[in-house]
């Protein structure tokens, strides 16, 4: 079956613009995670969805960042008024969570990421 897919693979935008990044998780995976990976760093957690709801958004850096998952499958990460410091690779991961509770116990499968460059 298909893995996690992310579109676009690359996005170049200008400072102040709005961007949307899309994640298609593995079919049937109820848990979805967004991470951000800056140059020379490991991935940093942004937000976690269980089904349609954001169960943990403690990693979002500020209110310019927002994510949705309206039907419990595809998710969109939205960044308003982009800044140069937002430039990074944005990774999406999904996992199957029996019982719906979610847990680090369940393997997270990562997509290839979207490289965002803010000029």
């Amino acid at each position: 079956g298909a893995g996690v897919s992310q579109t676009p693979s690359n996005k170049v935008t200008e400072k102040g613009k709005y961007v949307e990044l899309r994640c298609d998780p593995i079919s049937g995976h109820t848990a979805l995670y967004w991470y951000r990976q800056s140059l020379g760093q490991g991935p940093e957690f942004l937000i976690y969805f269980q089904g349609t709801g954001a169960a943990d958004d403690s990693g979002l850096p500020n209110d310019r960042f927002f994510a949705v998952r309206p039907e419990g499958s595809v998710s969109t990460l939205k960044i308003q008024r982009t800044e140069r410091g937002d430039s990074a690779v944005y990774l999406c991961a999904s996992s199957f969570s029996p019982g719906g509770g979610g847990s680090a116990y369940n393997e997270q499968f990562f997509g290839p990421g979207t490289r965002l460059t803010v000029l």
Partner: protein
Amino acid sequence: AQSVTQPDIHITVSEGASLELRCNYSYGATPYLFWYVQSPGQGLQLLLKYFSGDTLVQGIKGFEAEFKRSQSSFNLRKPSVHWSDAAEYFCAVGAHGAGTALIFGKGTTLSVSS
């Protein structure tokens, strides 16, 4: 707070030589521990994980890792490195509990020389 330290930013190993990548973690109890590999243009791939039990865990591609509670370490090893192992390696920790995300180290870049 949980954290992961990978002391080596870049390591070069000759093909066929053994490899050890270091990982130290900070966590109040026994965490879930993971090693991921990231090749250029590829997503992160899970190599192995430790949850409990036997402290020596085997993974894919001939990798293994040993959990040492006394040293708060989870070092990754491979007895004989292949050129295709050149990539970036990340150690990560996950907390017990529902929905917890992973905390990653900064990664170690492995180069393989012929």
